[in-house]
């Protein structure tokens, strides 16, 4: 009887989606040639697809509800996820780390230049993701204009090189500094805002930067951008394209390791704990004597620093920047990386960046569905697994003495 009800419901869902997608998916118009094309096959696909997806959806919703009930009654929740168990087990974790390290070091010699280039952009996104992770994951401030700092870094290198001939290594710290400066500039006006207003204002900030870059021709050369940006040189020696790419790859590996190290240390520091406290409860956090304004500003500044740096590397890698690389959707891809990996979890963000950036490159046939899939990822992750693929584990302090004395008394 139960199964029958379920099937009836799934049929209704399927009929509803066939109705819903009918005009947009089935009919395609060509107003110029005045032709209407009917694609009935799509309707069939949607009908069958939503019929089965309805079961999957129902199953996961039920599982989630059961999980919530179990948490309420205080029962032991499911065993820690697989990823966590692997991370905790030093016997697997350490050799895995060594293998990954060797693989990363040999990568440019095993694979072609094309693959190395793809890997560099994936590493840039790892860095961006880790930077945004500070703002969104640790401090809980939804920043949708993150790409603006990335643009600041990229344009800093392009313009300083164009006007003053500064080299990559000189601009890298400048880019980081400018990123932090812009982070504070954005941070000041939005200190008082709550979560959702903050999202919109940062989004507006990102768009303003992009529109200015597009329209202020004397400063940024408008939509055509700046080309012929030099690649980094090795102690003054100019490298060929091939060598320079490999060089950038190693620079990027180094920067990523630096980012991981710093973010990891930050997370456990005084300021990192202040961020997490701020994320959990602003009022309680202030009551504990944490300076809200300072904590938020440092989150913005430290998050933006990494974006500024990766912007410099991006400009050096592509040798060309224009405003089209810094749209709001870029911010949302970075957000998607953080959300998929797990907000606040460093290893999760790295995995998220590698999956989301490398997968579309190797599944070329589906690359046009990339943004569609990102949208689905954001919704599905939020509904079913808000912690991400590899959720951050809270540190739990166990007081062994307390339980013993409790038993004694």
């Amino acid at each position: 009887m139960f199964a029958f009800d379920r099937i009836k419901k799934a049929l209704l869902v399927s009929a509803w989606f066939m109705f819903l997608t009918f005009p947009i998916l089935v009919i395609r118009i060509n107003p110029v040639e005045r032709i209407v094309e009917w694609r009935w096959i799509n309707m069939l696909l949607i009908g069958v697809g939503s019929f089965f997806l309805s079961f999957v959806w129902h199953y996961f919703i039920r599982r989630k509800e059961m999980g919530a009930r179990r948490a309420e009654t205080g029962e032991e929740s499911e065993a820690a996820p697989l990823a966590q168990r692997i991370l905790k087990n030093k016997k697997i974790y350490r050799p895995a780390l060594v293998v990954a390290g060797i693989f990363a070091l040999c990568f440019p010699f095993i694979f072609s230049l094309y693959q190395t280039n793809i890997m560099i952009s994936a590493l840039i996104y790892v860095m961006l993701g880790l930077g945004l992770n500070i703002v969104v994951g640790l401090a809980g401030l939804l920043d949708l204009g993150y790409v603006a700092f990335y643009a600041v870094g990229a344009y800093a290198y392009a313009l300083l090189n164009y006007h003053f001939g500064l080299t990559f290594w000189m601009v890298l710290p400048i880019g980081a500094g400018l990123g932090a400066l812009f982070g504070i500039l954005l941070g000041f006006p939005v200190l008082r805002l709550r979560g959702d207003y903050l999202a919109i204002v940062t989004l507006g900030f990102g768009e303003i930067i992009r529109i200015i870059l597009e329209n202020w021709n004397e400063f940024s050369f408008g939509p055509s951008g700046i080309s012929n940006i030099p690649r980094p040189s090795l102690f003054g020696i100019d490298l060929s394209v091939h060598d320079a790419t490999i060089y950038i790859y190693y620079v990027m590996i180094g920067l990523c390791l630096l980012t991981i190290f710093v973010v990891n240390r930050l997370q456990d520091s005084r300021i990192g704990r202040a961020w997490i406290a701020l994320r959990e409860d602003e009022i309680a956090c202030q009551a504990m004597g944490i300076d809200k304004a300072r904590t938020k500003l440092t989150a913005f500044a430290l998050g933006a620093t990494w974006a500024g740096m990766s912007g410099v590397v991006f400009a050096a890698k592509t040798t060309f920047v224009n405003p089209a690389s810094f749209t709001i959707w870029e911010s949302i891809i970075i957000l998607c990386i953080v959300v998929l990996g797990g907000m606040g979890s460093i290893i999760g963000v790295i995995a998220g960046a590698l999956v989301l950036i490398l997968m579309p490159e190797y599944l070329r046939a589906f690359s046009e569905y990339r943004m569609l899939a990102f949208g689905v990822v954001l919704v599905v992750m939020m509904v079913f697994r808000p912690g991400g693929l590899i959720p951050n584990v809270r540190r739990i302090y166990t007081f062994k003495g307390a339980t013993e004395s409790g038993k004694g008394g």
Partner: protein
Amino acid sequence: MDYFLELFLGGLTRGSIYALIALGYTMVYGIIELINFAHGEIYMIGAFTALIVISVLTLMGMNTVAILVIAGVIAVIYSSAYGYTVEKIAYKPLRNAPRLSALISAIGMSLFLQNYVLLAQTSDFLPFPNLVPDFEFMEPYAHIIGSTEIVILLTTAVVMVLLTFLIKFTTIGKAMRAASQDKTMAMLVGINVNRVISVTFVVGSATAAIGGVLIASHVGMINFYIGFIAGIKAFVAAVLGGIGSIPGAVLGSFILGWTESFATGYVSSDYEDVFAFLFLVLILIFRPSGILGRTEKNKV
């Protein structure tokens, strides 16, 4: 003087469209305190559905006024259906989750709907036929205001009156107001809050669809991306007027419409979109509750 009047009426038209979209934001925010990021996409889907219906009916050879009415009705039905479904999939399971989760889910929905239309239809701008006939009595004023603009202003006025009636004098309107004041209390007195939320989404999406059809026939072009910028601007308007307040949304929309119209008319059109964002930043710094909004007190 004529130029001023033209800009004034242009701003009024713009403002009316923003108002039709902003209503959806403000109503949804009033009840579940969520910025429905996908709202702009609902408006875009309304415009696309109308264009598709118009194209099919034109090939079948119907007369223009009938086409416009049928296309409008179908667009409203479909947008409402999309709004309803989006709420059920992306927001309802997150009713008790942190606000950040619901917001991210909304962004994902917006991204999904945009690309859904992009892949199913086209990324090009499509011409949208202007089906509003030129009224003869409008001839002497044609250099100041077109007949499409008149239709937009009239439709907006009618929609506003109907909406005010719905919220002030019907049972469901009363339930909406109750739910926006206190959801738990509303449930306790027997209001089906889930149904009220669904109705809110349906009504908001319907007004957005009307806005979509009107602006599409006014501008004459649509593509999959129109919803995003329009949505952001309407949101700015809603915040400007005080989010959660319906008269505030209308007032904010008109102020934003005039600002944009005069700024592009007298200053420069390059930075058209920047004005809205600057406006938003300034309001949020100096008066975060908006012009007609109530200040929220945080209880611990």
